[in-house]
């Protein structure tokens, strides 16, 4: 995340981590480092660390472009090339950025990939995206086929199926581009570091069960998940970051403080909400402020589980290195079936004592959006709490109608208010 929402020490540390990573990327070619492009959901960052390969995440570049108000022009560029209005705007933004010199968030050009790795096939768009990038860079692609959790669990055969692909396809490809052998001990080291950071992250996200919540688990949450879902999982830097962050949050709980927002600390917590769906990046601040102005804090969100879900006890396990990677690939939020997602959201509403559920639906993102109305009705039914639906987009500024969104959020909160008064 380039823009820090506030300047807590952890935030400054994160900024530095990101700057260092992009500096490494800028020097990658001269340092003889290999670069892999990959996606956030179910990513295999530890395995890349084990090979000393540097990861780049096009989705993150796209959302960064959105936050830096560059995405509109990039998308226009991609649409000129013939990509339709309905295509995922992350893809168009990335393609547009590529065509405009592939300048990363720090102003340095990004290195070209030596390998493209797809570790989550639940999003069909990802496959198409990498097909396009393959045309562009002419480098090898590894696509892991990751089965959908249709029955709401990962079976032994699903796990074996993915582990086989890791052994026979991904590891050989990494060996071939780096010229080094797979070293399991190095992977296990990284996995142990991952597990430590994951424990702290879960503690941070679950701190929102307190009243008042010390964090905003959606707008603030996206900053908290930044390091763990990207290049830093499985590094000491991430362990340090999450340790600091957890200490900060615990300090806020002790002082009875609400979350820090760009517009100041939320002093009066009037509404506690659960949010489903990705945020809008082009108007991120404005969107957040709409909640802040109404005294609404998000206590739990599913977007913060987009890389992987930890709240059901999963941690990376150094004792089962490849199996644990396979489980992680299977376990990202959008690979869960609808009943599991409904159950998860209903549990959030209950466990976090929320007033209701807000769904931000993004038309161009099927992985998230398919079935959201059904989810909404079902969660309403199971919790007896009001839910609402807004529509925005990831990084297409044309699709954030601030007045409409604000109007809905206000209407929804007034409706919650009425409900509470009637009860």
């Amino acid at each position: 995340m380039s823009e820090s929402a506030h300047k807590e020490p952890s935030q400054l540390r994160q900024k530095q981590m990101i700057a260092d990573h992009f500096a490494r990327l800028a020097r990658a070619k001269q340092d003889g480092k290999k670069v892999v492009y990959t996606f956030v959901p179910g990513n295999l960052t530890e395995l890349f660390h084990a090979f000393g390969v540097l990861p780049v995440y096009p989705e993150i570049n796209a959302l960064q472009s959105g936050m830096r108000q560059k995405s509109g022009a990039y998308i226009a560029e991609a649409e000129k090339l013939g990509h339709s209005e309905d295509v995922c705007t992350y893809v168009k933004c990335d393609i547009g950025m590529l065509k405009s010199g592939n300048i990363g968030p720090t102003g340095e050009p990004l290195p070209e990939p030596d390998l493209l790795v797809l570790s989550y096939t639940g999003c069909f768009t990802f496959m198409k995206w990498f097909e396009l990038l393959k045309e562009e860079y002419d480098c090898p692609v590894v696509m892991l086929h990751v089965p959908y959790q249709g029955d709401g669990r990962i079976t032994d055969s699903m796990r074996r199926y993915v582990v086989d692909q890791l052994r026979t396809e991904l590891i050989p490809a990494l060996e071939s581009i780096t010229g080094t052998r797979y070293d399991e001990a190095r992977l296990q080291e990284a996995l142990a570091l991952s597990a430590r950071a994951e424990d702290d992250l879960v503690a941070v996200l679950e701190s929102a069960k307190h009243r008042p919540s010390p964090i905003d688990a959606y707008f603030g949450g996206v900053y908290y998940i930044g390091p763990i879902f990207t290049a830093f999982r499985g590094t000491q830097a991430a362990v340090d970051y999450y340790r600091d962050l957890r200490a900060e949050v615990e300090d806020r709980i002790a002082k009875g403080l609400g979350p820090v927002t760009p517009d100041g600390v939320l002093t009066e917590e009037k509404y506690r909400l659960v949010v489903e769906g990705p945020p809008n990046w082009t108007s991120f601040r404005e969107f957040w402020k709409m909640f802040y102005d109404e005294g609404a804090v998000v206590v739990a969100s599913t977007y913060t589980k987009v890389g992987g879900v930890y709240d059901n006890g999963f941690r990376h396990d150094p004792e089962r290195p490849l199996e644990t990677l396979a489980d992680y690939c299977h376990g990202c939020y959008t690979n869960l079936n609808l009943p599991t997602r409904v159950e998860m959201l209903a549990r959030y509403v209950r466990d976090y004592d929320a007033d209701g559920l807000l769904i931000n639906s993004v038309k161009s993102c099927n992985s998230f959006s398919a079935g959201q109305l059904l989810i909404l009705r079902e969660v309403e039914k199971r919790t007896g709490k009001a839910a609402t639906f807004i529509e925005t987009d990831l990084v297409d500024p044309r699709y954030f109608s601030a007045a409409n969104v604000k109007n809905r959020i206000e209407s929804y909160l007034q409706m919650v208010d009425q409900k509470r008064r009637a009860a």
Partner: protein
Amino acid sequence: MILTAGVDVGTSAVKVAFVESPEGGGRERPGARVVAKWTERIRRRDQREVIKLAYGAALEQANVRPDDVDYVATTGEGELVDFRTGHFYGMTAHARGALFLDPETRAVVDVGALHGRAIKLDERSKVLGYRMTSQCASGSGQFLENIARYLGVSLDEIGPLSRTSTSPEKISGICAVLAETDVINMVSRGIAVQDILRGIHESMANRFLKLLRSAKVTDGVVLITGGLSADEGLLACMCDLAADMKSFAIDVRTHPDAAYAGALGAALWGAYRHERLRERRAA
């Protein structure tokens, strides 16, 4: 001398131009001059009535009788003109008229009430390519008129006001109706009228520059024609934005008679066709 009339029937106004040109002028009509011009905004009146009115006014101005006119050429919704001799496509008429107004013109941006289009042409007014705003009325004169009414600004104030803007407000450009909503919300947020207008001008200018680009126009003189050609705010925006773009070396211009480009072009083509018909009859 050949006397021809051009009648350009648009959705919001009827433009009539009378042109006199020496015999044997071929396509180019050297020495052609305008002897009358008249614009009549329709303003919810019957279009045929307005056509009669405008044509009558032009006849009077040129001080001629209907029978003196050798050829009545129409463009736009020409089928409403029952006294026409022949009809010409808007694209070719505008290209010809623009070249007549400014011989250096190599591209036209025609901004009408409901649509805008970009036309690329050569030095003989041959149309090399064109693009239209296919999807959205938010780049049209009608849209601007609706907004002006809402803001309580009369049409001739739009341009001068827009030019005084210091911080233009961005308009979301996906849908005309949502763009209107946008403007309504700007008013409710207390944004200054001139900043709203400049924001609309910028979004329109952007749209037209995109059109030019997709019509493969990257340099040379671009003439703004059509109903909004007199809007100095739009013109200023086009110039500013084009100057900021790297891949663009266009020189954006307009002309006091730019609104008549279609009518003039039709009249000029009419003179050429009139001569051809005469030759054919003589043969």
